[in-house]
């Protein structure tokens, strides 16, 4: 039997006297912000480079606008300035998807894998604080990555194309840029975090979100072809957009009042210019996806122990 060490307390109770609590008395008002800040810090350590790729999406309309100064309008066609922003926006969607895949899908799954929730949920924050913190982190990153290059293009136009009529559109374009930057940030953060909360492995969460994104696009394409075969061409475009990528693209067209185009020429489908999808089903689907993602996340945040090999 080992005798008690001299350094240890004598008897069962070391000190029965009243001892005032000396730690912090109040928790932070915005406790979720601690989670958000921490997540953003971790993310930028790993995937900040990917954010730069979003900027390249806006280089294409930038170059188009620059060339527009030299090429007569009858060759390039009459285009609103907003349509150039839509070109940049639609080009950025793929990169934003990749960013969401790399930061959104692993966000809670990474914590599950690291068993961090056992520690975090024994701290003075609620599950709601934690969820809001995670959602906000993914949202802010995506919003920033979408907004900053669009604003850069806006400033470029403001400095270079006022004499070509940009000043007339400038005030109207700014809220559109903000709205179009909010959209992918909200949808991706909600759905990706929802998928993430269900998983105990960041890789699995990433794979599931990627598969969901691609599968919904394929299914909506097939469904639209079936609709066309059955004579429903007027709703085919809307059906084609019933996916995460489709919703982002479809609502983006409404925000910028633009048609999908390639090198200034409108995209065609079944011999006709591709019409814009109906706004209401797009908004309803986006809202449903967000609600589903947040509900999934809220119901699956718990301190489970993940045993690693």
């Amino acid at each position, binding site marked *: 039997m080992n005798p008690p060490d001299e350094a240890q307390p004598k008897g069962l109770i070391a000190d029965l006297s009243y001892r005032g609590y000396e730690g912090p008395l109040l928790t932070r008002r915005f*406790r979720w912000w601690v989670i958000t800040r*921490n997540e953003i810090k971790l993310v930028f350590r790993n995937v900040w480079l990917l954010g730069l790729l979003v900027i390249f999406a806006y280089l294409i309309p930038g170059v188009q606008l620059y060339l527009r100064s030299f090429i007569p309008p009858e060759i390039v066609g009459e285009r609103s300035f907003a349509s150039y922003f839509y070109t940049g926006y639609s080009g950025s969607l793929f990169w934003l998807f990749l960013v969401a895949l790399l930061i959104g899908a692993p966000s809670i799954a990474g914590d599950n894998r690291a068993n961090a929730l056992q520690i975090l949920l024994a701290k003075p924050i609620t599950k709601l604080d934690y969820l809001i913190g995670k959602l906000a982190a993914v949202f802010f990153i995506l919003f920033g990555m979408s907004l900053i290059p669009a604003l850069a293009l806006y400033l470029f136009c403001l400095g270079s194309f006022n004499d070509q009529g940009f000043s007339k559109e400038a005030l109207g374009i700014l809220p559109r840029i903000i709205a179009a930057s909010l959209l992918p940030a909200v949808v991706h953060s909600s759905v990706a975090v929802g998928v993430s909360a269900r998983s105990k492995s960041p890789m699995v969460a990433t794979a599931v979100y990627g598969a969901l994104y691609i599968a919904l696009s394929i299914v909506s394409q097939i469904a639209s072809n079936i609709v066309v075969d059955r004579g429903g061409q007027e709703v085919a475009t809307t059906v084609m957009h019933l996916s995460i990528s489709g919703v982002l693209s479809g609502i983006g067209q409404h925000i910028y009042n633009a048609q999908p185009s390639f090198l200034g020429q409108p995209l065609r489908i079944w011999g006709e210019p591709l019409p814009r999808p109906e706004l209401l089903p797009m908004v309803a689907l986006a809202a449903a996806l967000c609600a589903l993602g947040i509900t999934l996340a809220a119901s699956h945040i718990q301190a489970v122990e993940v045993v690693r090999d």
Partner: protein
Amino acid sequence: MISLRNASRWYGQVIGINDITADLPPGLTALLGPNGAGKSTLIKLITGILRPTTGSVLVFGERPFANTKVYRRLGYCPEIDGLYESMTGREFVTAMAAVSGLKGALLRKKVDEAISLVGMEAAASRVIGGYSKGMKQRIKLAQAIVHDPDVLVLDEPLSGLDPIGRRDMTNLICSLAQQGKCIVVSSHILHEVEQMTSNILLLYRGRLLASGDVYHIRSLIDKHPHRVQIETSEPRLLAAELMRFPHVVSVRFSDGSPNQVEVETKNPEAFYSQLPDVVLEGDFEITAFESLDNNLEAVFRYLTEG
């Protein structure tokens, strides 16, 4: 500080803990039990990660489940050591301190103090992924004590540590207990617990088997014949010498290991004090020595089988 009243927790058909009633005072209390005894379940009930299925668990007189008032005064160091491997130790402790409600200069001061207390100043700027098991245990302890909690719950804090790491961690835990904190430590190794505290809750298959002074429980063991296994080149000669003592009740030789002799004694203290003399006088070469009953399983065997 911590009060359990008929607390039970089931996982579907499986019992985690069953009808436990106990009060945990300030100072150091150990939850002792083999794997699957319910120690981690009990800890999760105390830390509010789980809610009891029946009965009640109160910490500072409040139910801890999802209760941020309780969490402000509670530090928890889980057994797992995944953590954020791309963060440095300092970043991790800082993040956890911020979640606990600290900010600004006070946060930095408390982080420095906690890191210093666990002896991680030199390694605090390295990423956790490169830490040894002992360093991870220390940094986990630092995040648990950074906000100066009144209740500190440590799940298997000595698990995986080398002997020096165990000694350092034991001293650290004892010094925290001396400050008047209520510390709950879980372990499945009896001698680890004995070095830290004499106040234990003995869990077995989800039930509270015994509580109180570990030395009292030890004395219960000592009422039963105590088995010691000795490996020597002359087992039969050594056995003959040992049989001269009145407290030695039997000796047994193993078929599989011809150099082993198992001795059963009614008075372990006398046996351990007399054994060196016998060995020296007879010039026996002892190659292995093991007390078969000096472990937790033996305690449970005595307590459950009588």
